[in-house]
């Protein structure tokens, strides 16, 4: 009874403090929103006037007509090139983002309805490549539609105008994608709120000297830590839900797996992140140091080494080892699997088990360093 009242009093106090400290609240809510927009849009921004090399090996009016759609698109800036080698040279120098190769038999096959256009995409930025691909496809589709209209007037078969695009990705070393990026943001934002914001809370009490009085009360260390978790858990979940909503409705990322499973594993990872934050805070006892440590050991690694930006399959062994030590990396695997591949128990369950392990580890560590002692 007394214990319950103590915990409630502590939780109430933490909630009030969080709500009154505007800067912290802003960090917890505005920053996730900002990051979502920055990463979501910043990296898959609409492409305008994208340079595209066009190799016209068929100079018939039909082929010219089909290719003219490229010039009409405001998103593309076609450069007419004489030969494939010349176009490939431009591509290698990254002067163009794609090559549209219209083969010599284009107009001949167009009549038969199985015309093929080769599209080679510069894949270093997959998001941009995909955008360019859709614009090129759109341009050909519009040209086809115009031809179909004309054919309909003449009473000919509509199928005759169809053009088949054969896209291929070049230089696709990074293998990132917009659909990969937005789900990954969930990991980044939970890490930010959980580890970074929470790293300040115990340190702040050490700095302001408020713990000294709090220690000499019946409040137990576990109760003090638990009370600190509650409001930051709420802020973390808010950030998570914002990110989830953005992924679903703003960026249209399909969720292949189960939503319930995704939420459950995210709650698990949020608790791990909170544990890391509390542990850092209790050890450093200094807000500045705590924030730096949290930034360097949780947020930045989650950004760089968790597979968010760079695929861990292609990194040197030491980096791979460090990456796999991070709880964020394992959560990243789960999130991407659930979003893009679906419920794959063989992938999701071991990673979730690992997260449970991290959870126990960090909570035990935070509790171990939070002794009601000043020396």
């Amino acid at each position: 009874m007394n214990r319950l009242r103590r915990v409630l009093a502590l939780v109430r106090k933490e909630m009030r403090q969080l709500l009154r400290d505007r800067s912290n609240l802003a960090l917890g809510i505005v920053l996730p929103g900002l990051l979502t927009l920055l990463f979501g849009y910043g990296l898959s921004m609409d492409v305008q006037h994208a340079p595209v090399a066009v190799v016209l090996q068929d100079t018939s009016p039909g082929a010219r007509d089909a290719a003219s759609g490229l010039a009409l698109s405001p998103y593309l800036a076609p450069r007419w090139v004489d030969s494939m080698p010349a176009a490939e040279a431009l591509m290698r120098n990254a002067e163009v983002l794609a090559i549209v190769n219209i083969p010599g038999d284009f107009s001949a096959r167009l009549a038969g309805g199985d015309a093929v256009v080769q599209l080679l995409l510069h894949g270093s930025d997959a998001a941009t490549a995909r955008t360019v691909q859709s614009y090129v496809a759109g341009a050909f589709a519009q040209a086809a539609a115009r031809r179909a209209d004309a054919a309909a007037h003449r009473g000919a078969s509509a199928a005759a105008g169809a053009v088949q695009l054969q896209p291929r990705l070049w230089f696709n070393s990074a293998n990132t994608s917009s659909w990969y990026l937005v789900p990954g943001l969930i990991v980044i934002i939970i890490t930010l709120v959980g580890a970074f914001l929470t790293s300040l809370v115990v340190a702040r009490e050490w700095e302001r000297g408020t713990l000294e009085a709090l220690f000499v009360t019946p409040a137990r260390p576990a109760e003090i830590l638990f009370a600190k978790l509650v409001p930051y858990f709420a802020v973390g979940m808010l950030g998570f839900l914002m990110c989830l909503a953005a992924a679903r409705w703003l960026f249209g990322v399909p969720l292949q797996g189960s939503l319930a499973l995704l939420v459950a594993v995210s709650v698990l990872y949020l608790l791990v992140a909170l544990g890391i934050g509390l542990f850092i805070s209790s050890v450093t006892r200094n807000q500045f140091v705590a924030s730096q440590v949290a930034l360097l050991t949780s947020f930045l690694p989650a950004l760089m080494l968790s597979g968010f930006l760079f695929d861990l399959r292609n990194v040197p062994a030491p980096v791979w080892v460090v990456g796999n030590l991070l709880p964020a990396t394992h959560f990243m695997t789960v999130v991407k699997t659930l979003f893009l591949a679906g419920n794959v128990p063989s992938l999701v369950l071991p990673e979730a088990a690992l997260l449970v392990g991290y959870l126990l580890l960090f909570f035990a560590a935070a509790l171990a360093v939070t002794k009601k002692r000043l020396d």
Partner: protein
Amino acid sequence: MSASAIVAQGLGKDFPAPGAKAKVAALAELSLEVPAGSITALVGPDGAGKTTFIRLAAGLLRPDRGRLQVLGLDVARDPQAVQDRISYMPQRFGLYEDLSVQENLDLYADLHGVPRAVRQARYARLMEMTDLNPFRSRLAGKLSGGMKQKLGLACTLVRSPQLLLLDEPTVGVDPLSRRELWQIVEQLIQGEQVSVLVATAYLDEAERCARVYLLREGRLLAGGTPAELRERASGLVQVAEPAAGEAPRLLQARLLDDRARVVDAVPEAGAVRFIRRGGAGLALARSHSVQARLEDGFMLLLDAADTAPRAAAAAIAAPAVAAQPAAPVISVQHLTRRFGDFVAVADTSFEVRRGEVFGLLGPNGAGKTTTFRMLCGLLPPSSGRLSVAGVDMRHARAAARRHIGYVSQKFALYANLSVEDNLRFFAGAYGLAGAALQRQLQRAYAEFDLQQVKRLPSGQLPGGFRQRLAMAAALLHEPEILFLDEPTSGADPHARRAFWRRITALAAAGTTVVVTTHFMEEAEYCDRIVIQDAGRVLALGTPAEVRASAGGGGGAATTMEQAFIGVVEAARRGLQEAA
């Protein structure tokens, strides 16, 4: 319940020393008992181990040697059991500044499991005792220093503990609030049979306790009732009248310098109270014996324990001719400062003459700091005239700053720079270079006794050294006027004597000194003082004039503290009647 609330036997606690491998003993071989049901005081100079002992008793530190029983429990073995039964007010009570007064109270009431039924009555009583009732919804961070301290005490007292631990609860608190705090504690003892252990730098507070322990450098120097400790100085205390026209502080400085025959000397009520060294013959004209106080016994005990020779202060130049018609260096006319609707300083006028020691006194929130900042050119006045060192502060604040030195309340030097680097930096800031710089540095080392610590980071210096360094830095450019904001807050009597001895020397050399303080007896060092409250000047004049105007009957009989409380309370009553 046993007869002793705390029993310490051979208690020892070590701390790692900064920069050294060996540990330093903060407490060594300490054995003492705190009786149940009364107030026990822990006194001693800086670094005596008072705070360490209280933290050990609160279970916040673990002893390295010896045994410590609190309320019959072994603290080292079961700190939580002790923490469930005691209340503790640390030196810097950690109020949650973003919670309101009421929310802070509720939090501690919930943590201590105070039943809702008794809570309202308890709150009402605490709020009445602390006068915080009108401010219950105010954020704790927005309270003045004295009010924060009272709220800290109120939070500590939301329930009746078996043992109450107070670590310097009245540091930086004005005499009025200090008196109120003690009334609260004493009411509690009478009503509820609580045991109290209080560490304090104020010996008049220790005098009110049933038992006093004097610590020095982690060891127990003496213990007993205040009467027993007083007794040691019995027959050795005298009061000497200064010659006509001589400032009491000059006589005090002469006596203090006579180390062979005088243990201690302080100015008091226009005269000088001093302790004769036992056996030494000292015949002063116009002097008579008076009754010893606890502070006399304390100074005597510390003096006996002090083996290290204390640094001699700079000799005082020939006393300035008293009747010298000195020109005013600070002139304040109808000075007013508003912050929005709030009037921090209202229609204040006074003058400070060259070579004068001028004291600004007032309760917490009286407008002292605001006045001070305007005098230093850190804050522009809302209206009124203000000239410092002949410079109109409204137009030429930068020019005036060259003539002033400022020592702030908090240590404002760079903690990780060495003493020498700090001094060089401030000298550079004042434009000193070359031979002038060297001369000033050497002077600072010599005058403030900093030579042997000049390579140490200033953050690692003990409090007394830091204070001297701060003063040395403020005096590098030989300012005409030195401003000191609560320079002796939290300092022990020794450090305060040494501080005022330097001020006396500075004033004798022609420097004007403006100082704020919470130690009312320190007003006796001043030539003239002003007492402010709620932004208004309540009294202005020499200490003798202020004491007389307080109307304590016979003037000189009252102490400055009584005079201060009288003046402030009379003014507050007047305000209430007018309202």
